[in-house]
């Protein structure tokens, strides 16, 4: 079952632009993690945000969490071609269940 789902399914931006990926989840969480998967690689963690946090930053990345609406967002500023990847959100710690992901394409 999909306990966390990203939207939109796909996005395309030009280098330097900002972009936001959204995530909705269906049950209570202790934390939410964002992962990025580049072509031919396994997913890699970007940010972990705990249920008592509202915002977390990691360089050009910013994640927000709204437990009342059971949603999260991941924003990337000053995008680069190397940000082209599929972005996933996943609930909680350790045992992770992924959605289908948002495919982001950053064009020169």
């Amino acid at each position, binding site marked *: 079952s999909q306990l966390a789902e990203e939207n939109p399914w796909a996005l395309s931006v030009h280098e330097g632009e900002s972009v936001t990926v959204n995530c909705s989840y269906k049950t209570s969480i202790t934390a939410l993690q964002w992962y990025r998967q580049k072509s031919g690689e396994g997913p890699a963690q970007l940010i972990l945000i705990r249920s008592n946090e509202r915002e977390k930053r990691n360089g050009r990345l910013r994640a927000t969490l709204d437990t009342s609406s059971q949603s999260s967002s991941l924003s990337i500023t000053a995008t680069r071609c190397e940000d082209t990847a599929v972005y996933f959100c996943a609930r909680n*710690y350790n045992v992770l269940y992924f959605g289908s992901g948002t495919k982001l394409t950053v064009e020169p």
Partner: protein
Amino acid sequence: EAGVTQSPRYAVLQEGQAVSFWCDPISGHDTLYWYQQPRDQGPQLLVYFRDEAVIDNSQLPSDRFSAVRPKGTNSTLKIQSAKQGDTATYLCASSLTANTGQLYFGEGSKLTVL
């Protein structure tokens, strides 16, 4: 620090053949996971271990799939009598239970069943 290592990177089989995938987790990580990722979908958990014990294998698709981690380090995922529907990338990940819960993934083993 070496990452999670998987082999082989690619496998092509005819239906009915068997295949084994091998995973070497990050040294010291007590938890090991196998995920199946069909094309254009997210990773789906198959099974995970803590040390040598299977914690949850309820998501293994059928009796054709098996996984072991006999010494609590390396792990093998085996598919017997493969079907076209098994075509996917098989990802291994490891984590240290005592940490923040971050999973470290290998590059995956891409299986094509003709």
